[in-house]
């Protein structure tokens, strides 16, 4: 007899419908075959399904079982066809009816229970878009799938429960979406108030976080670059609803949502180590998976020891920084992942690390420093809006002169300011395709940044004195826009340009 179960297949973030056809023939030698371009994980489904059925005290039919995953020319990946295949076989054994307008999705364990499976959110979204009634997913993935409103998400424990449900012996209540426990920003490693000194670096991070600007921090070992970067998530406002869904989709497709987890509300913070491969950073594989840049979408990509990353890996960042997305083309698939992230890079000032340090002497020769800087320079630096020096803090100097009590603001105080600036930008760009000041291109800069004559002449002077390139010039204007937004000023004034110039590329020698 032939049974049809509906499931899905993923290619990047797009989902297509897959009909899982299970045919159990009365004639022929007993076999169990899966056809329809299954990859290794799909083909191994046979063993999982057979064993799970037997371990659930069900009789596995010794007949000729053929499973077809249609359409047959699309390669299938993943272990989530276990459930639809098992349901197809069970309906033969137990003779229950499989609901037509439902998607089955989940990986089986050998004991017959269902495991947390990646991609549940994408499957649920697909069900909703195609006006289906319900989706059956493993219990631990139900929270994730229930983010999608308007369809019933049935959480499943194991095979026996499924049988009882279809025999109408028990009832399974659809999971009701529970907004994620507002993971307090306490999950952040450091609070900004814990960082001693470094007022300029903190201010720079505030501006960067407010306008989504990329930032480069240069300083000696131990000056606090890493600590500052780790404190950054604490000052970033939470994701809004749209952003949250965008991010969760990527995480769902990469299998980065923990069992029982649901919507991601905090901004991602990714800090890959410098031994990362190009595919690891930007994404890749024959069945392309998202890379760190996509996992950092709407959040922060922190590259510590920026100089140590291979040149080719760094250069691969250029296009995604410009476009906010990256298309990975392979012979069988072409996948686009979004990658609108804020780049935070940190590096030592010279090979030994102690250039300009007050306490330790730099042992590098000029030539070594020039060679080291060459690795830093180039088109990627051109795409970084803020350059900031992070000197080693002299504790003695800190302790006196701390009379100003408002100096050490906490992360949440800063976050409130930043959230306001994000709102201003949302309002400003409501008719544009961008979210933040940093994404403005020439045309939008002219449209949204009005400069008075004082500001213009200051920029002209600065271009001469500081030898700014045309691109740096525009970056200064974008930064000044964010600085003015922080003061909630309509127009960019001279003083905003002046402050923005503190973060120009040449400020670190």
């Amino acid at each position: 007899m032939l049974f049809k179960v509906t499931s899905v297949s993923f290619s990047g973030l797009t989902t297509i419908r897959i009909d899982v056809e299970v045919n159990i023939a009365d004639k022929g030698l007993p076999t169990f075959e899966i056809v329809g371009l299954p990859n290794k994980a799909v083909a191994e489904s046979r063993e999982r399904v057979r064993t799970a059925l037997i371990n659930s005290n069900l009789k596995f039919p010794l007949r000729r079982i053929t499973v077809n995953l249609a359409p047959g020319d699309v390669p299938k990946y993943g272990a989530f066809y276990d459930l639809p295949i098992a349901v197809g076989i069970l309906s033969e054994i137990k003779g229950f009816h499989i609901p037509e307008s439902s998607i089955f999705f989940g990986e089986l364990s050998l004991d017959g229970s269902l495991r947390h499976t990646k991609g549940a959110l994408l499957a649920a979204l697909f069900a909703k878009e195609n006006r289906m009634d319900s989706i059956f997913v493993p219990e631990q993935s139900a929270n994730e799938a229930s983010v999608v409103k308007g369809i019933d998400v049935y959480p499943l424990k194991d095979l026996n429960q499924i049988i009882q449900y279809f025999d109408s012996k028990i009832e399974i209540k659809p999971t009701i979406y529970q907004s994620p426990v507002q993971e307090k920003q306490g999950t952040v490693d450091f609070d900004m108030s814990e960082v001693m000194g470094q007022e300029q670096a903190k201010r720079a991070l505030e501006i960067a976080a407010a306008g989504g600007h990329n930032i480069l921090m240069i300083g000696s070992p131990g000056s606090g670059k890493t600590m500052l970067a780790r404190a950054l998530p604490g000052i970033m406002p939470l994701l809004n609803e749209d952003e949250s869904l965008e991010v969760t989709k990527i995480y769902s497709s990469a299998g980065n949502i923990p069992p029982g987890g649901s919507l991601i509300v905090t901004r991602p913070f990714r800090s890959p180590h410098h031994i990362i491969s190009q595919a690891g950073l930007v994404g890749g594989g024959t069945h392309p998976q998202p890379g760190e840049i996509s996992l950092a979408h709407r959040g922060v990509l922190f590259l510590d020891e920026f100089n140590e990353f291979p040149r080719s890996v760094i250069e691969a960042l250029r296009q995604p920084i410009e476009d906010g997305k990256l298309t990975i083309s392979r012979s069988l698939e072409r996948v686009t992942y979004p990658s609108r992230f804020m780049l935070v890079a940190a590096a030592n000032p010279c090979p030994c690390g102690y250039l300009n340090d007050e306490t330790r002497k730099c042992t590098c020769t000029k030539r070594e420093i020039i060679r080291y800087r060459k690795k830093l320079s180039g088109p990627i630096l051109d795409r970084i809006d803020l350059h900031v020096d992070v000197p080693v803090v002299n504790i003695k100097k800190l302790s006196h002169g701390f009379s100003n009590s408002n100096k050490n603001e906490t992360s949440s105080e800063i976050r409130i300011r930043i959230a306001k600036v994000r709102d201003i930008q949302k309002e400003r760009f409501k008719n544009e395709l961008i979210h933040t000041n940093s994404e403005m291109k020439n045309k939008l800069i002219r449209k949204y940044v009005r400069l008075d004559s004082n500001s213009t002449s200051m920029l002209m002077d600065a271009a001469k004195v500081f030898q700014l390139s045309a691109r740096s010039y525009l970056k200064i204007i974008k930064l000044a826009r964010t600085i003015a937004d922080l003061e909630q000023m309509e127009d960019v004034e001279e003083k905003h340009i002046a402050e923005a110039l503190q973060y120009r590329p040449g400020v670190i020698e």
Partner: protein
Amino acid sequence: MNYIDIKSTEYPYLLLQIKDPPPRLYFKGDWDTTIFTETLSVVGSRRMTRYGEIITDNLVSSIAGAGITIVSGFMYGIDAQAHNAALEAGGRTIAVMPCGIEKIHPEYQLDLHTRILNNNGLVISEYPGDTPPALWTYPRRNRIIAGLAPILLVIEAGIKSGALITAKIAKRYNKKIFAVPGPLTSSVSIGTAILIKHGSQIVTGAGDILTEYGKTNPEELFSKKELYGVNANQKEILKILVDEPMGIDDIARSVGKQISEIGADITFLSLKNHLTLNGGKYYLVKEVKNVI
């Protein structure tokens, strides 16, 4: 190929006084004998510190500004800084190469090489063509540097350094040696301290050297810079920087203001050329220091 033979009347007189003058001097640029009338040799470490950089700029710019030719060895560090400072002050400078005259060593200082030649300076060497530099050509070159001027100024030097070798040669030639004092914690100030201990003159300002040439320190003639357009807050920043150079965080803490405000003020002051940024710290320019 351009060279001056030892028999030529245009051969630098001072170089004839040494024991083993090079028989031929290959050169680039226009050979104008007036460049050798008043000369000062400047040597120092390749590992120039910020201190060395600032002192070189201060001393050499005043001396070269007074019309004295600066002779040095074109190496990166103090040498290159000295050539640079001389050029900035509008003076002439001579680079003595340790390699063939056609070679530029180090190569990445091509720009400096061009600027020396474009500003009536000279590049000279006793080696023709593109002879590569070798360990033994450096001390040979140093004798030319020491020989070309009546006075040698050592700015920073390690214990075993080319600068000290040059000083030794200069002593043998009975040249006057001036050395710049520096902190004893710095390895490149030990060499100059030793020189001072053994009887070299200590330098406390460009005037010390200029009087040797019968000139007064032009620094005293500097017009005081007018501070117009500087508001009270900015003036306060300038005052704080008189005592010691500071980074921006320290300035903000000393003045007791928000970093955003200080940042804007610092940009104003930098654009007006009242401040210079060097190694993460802000320094007052000389003219402003005289006013505050």
